[in-house]
């Protein structure tokens, strides 16, 4: 599946701007972004409900321009599930098959297989309003998969489920995808959902793809302040590169009150203004001053105790705040940092992210 320079205008409003993406066969690909970022519009163009204002969409090398939704080998799982209320679960799943050339027995066999796959065989004769939200979600999935699409589009597939069910369903979705081998494109606003589900993610903002890559690439090597801030949490500081020494750069960060050492990035020569982004879990908190570079003194202002870990908010000499994660490895650990304790913060040069845009 290839998207080439696709844009969409609604009147004067540019919903999608020059998107280029390639999605491989059998991949789970996530379109991630806040509301109104254009991800749903992009999905609707893939399904054929909207025509792109510019650009082309190719599926298996075939140009999809002008192909109506009912002729595309692409199926969609709607956010509201859009189950037909007047048909039973079984009829819903069988609905798409009435356009396939197959015998009655084959059709029944396929429907049985799909209901098996989503474990709904015993609910085959119920109407959609007689089953739970999670079951409805699985009916919608089975219905979209029944025609064996080349590409399955999932619009916020887990948004309508509660938290516990969501986690369980995530893994079910992944295993069903593995078994069927169908390419999934998932639209979501939930970064955790995207990270767990997807092989690759495209982060969208204001109609544009800001970065695409594997979850690790996007998390560890964001290419912009927007992506860094959207995926996970960061504390960022303004800085200026003072020297580039091969792999490592020296950066003067007034907010941290010191000069730090960080891994060099392209496009950041000496003298370049940069943003230094630190993720809370990449910073270590100690009572004694640690060896090595990047050691900063601070005082604990706030502790949020989550049980398995805690989030500390530490006041820096410059008056700024930084968030630091600490894992609570031992029970009732003696000497765990407490309110107003003076502490030292340190981080690996490779952990600091330098961003130029």
């Amino acid at each position, binding site marked *: 599946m290839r998207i080439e320079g696709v844009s969409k205008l609604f009147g004067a409003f540019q919903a999608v701007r020059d998107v280029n993406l390639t999605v491989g066969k059998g991949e789970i690909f996530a379109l991630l972004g806040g509301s109104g970022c254009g991800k749903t519009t992009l999905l609707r163009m893939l399904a*054929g*409900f*909207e*025509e792109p204002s510019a650009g082309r969409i190719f599926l298996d090398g075939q140009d999809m321009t002008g192909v*109506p*939704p009912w002729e595309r080998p692409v199926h969609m799982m709607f956010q509201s599930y859009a189950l037909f209320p007047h048909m039973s679960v079984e009829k819903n799943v069988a609905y798409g098959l009435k356009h396939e050339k197959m015998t009655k027995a084959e059709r029944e066999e396929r429907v049985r297989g799909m209901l098996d796959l989503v474990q709904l065989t015993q609910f085959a004769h119920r109407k959609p309003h007689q089953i739970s939200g999670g079951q409805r979600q699985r009916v919608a999935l089975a219905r979209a998969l029944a025609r064996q699409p080349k590409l399955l589009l999932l619009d916020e597939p887990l948004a309508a489920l509660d938290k516990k069910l969501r986690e369980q369903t995530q893994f079910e979705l992944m295993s069903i995808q593995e078994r069927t081998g169908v390419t999934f494109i998932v639209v979501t606003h939930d970064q955790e959902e995207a990270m767990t589900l997807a092989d690759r993610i495209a982060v969208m903002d204001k109609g544009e793809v800001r970065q695409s890559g594997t979850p690790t690439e996007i998390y560890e090597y964001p290419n912009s302040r927007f992506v860094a801030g959207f995926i996970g949490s960061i504390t960022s500081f303004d800085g200026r590169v003072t020297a580039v020494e091969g792999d490592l750069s020296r950066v003067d960060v007034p907010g941290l009150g010191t000069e730090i050492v960080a891994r060099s990035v392209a496009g950041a020569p000496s003298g370049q203004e940069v943003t230094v982004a630190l993720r809370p879990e990449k910073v270590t908190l100690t009572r004694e001053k640690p060896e090595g570079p990047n050691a900063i003194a601070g005082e604990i202002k706030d502790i949020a105790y989550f049980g398995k870990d805690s989030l500390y908010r530490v006041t820096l000499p410059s008056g700024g705040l930084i968030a630091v994660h600490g894992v609570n490895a031992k029970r009732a650990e003696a000497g765990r940092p407490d309110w107003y304790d003076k502490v030292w913060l340190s981080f690996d040069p490779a952990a600091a992210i330098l961003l130029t845009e």
Partner: protein
Amino acid sequence: MRRRPIFLISVLCFGFAFFYIPILSMIVYSFNGSRLATVWGGFSTKWYVSLFSNKQVGAALFLSLKIALISATMATILGTMAGIALARFRRFKGRLFFSGMVTAPLIMPDVITGISSLMLFILMAEWIGWPSTRGFTTITLAHITFSMVYVTTIVQSRLISAERDIEEAAMDLGSKPWQVLWDITLPVIFPAILSGWLLAFTISLDEVVITSFTTGPGNTTLPLLIWSKVKLGVTPDINALATLIVLVVGIGVVIAGWLMNRAEKQRDRDARLAYRANE
């Protein structure tokens, strides 16, 4: 990917032509100079002149308005009571029977309502001597009866969809149940009561079959006057009367639509201001 629904739009156009061409034709022919109502004989306003100089029309209009005003008001009071009874009092003796009596007049053919009311009034006069003559009183009684059930339907459905917690809140704050009804419920459903009144008023103003059975000598409402003329065929002064009625209703609906639109815009503006004040 939305295609223009050409078929649907053409049926809509056909439908609106079907609705309005007869009315337009009637309006055009009201300015016809010829006596023969269907042959064009030049532009003239003489039918309007003859309409306005006809004392019968004025008297009939006055009687119709008087009946509509009184019967709509009575029907609203009784109909609202019935609506409250059905929506708020879950159980009382004969509730099912009562709700049947509220629905039945809606599907009763006018002819049957007409003859049954007439027989009732004749027999009442026979047995208890009242009503001694038929006319204003009997028409009004019949109109109240069949229009109150429309009010009940509107009020009842509004009450069922209304939230109960404000009523419970008022009770919690020390109001007696009837005070809750008076202070909270009635003001909340007032728009429904008003539209019930309007519906009762228009139904009464338009009613001809039941009226023709329950009226007595010398009591001609406007629909009865039109009815007696129209039975004899097409006459040009009825065209003029129809044009005036369409004009009055049209202006009324446009003004009502404009007022509602303005109120809605004002609400939107207030909501936006309130929202901004919160930020």
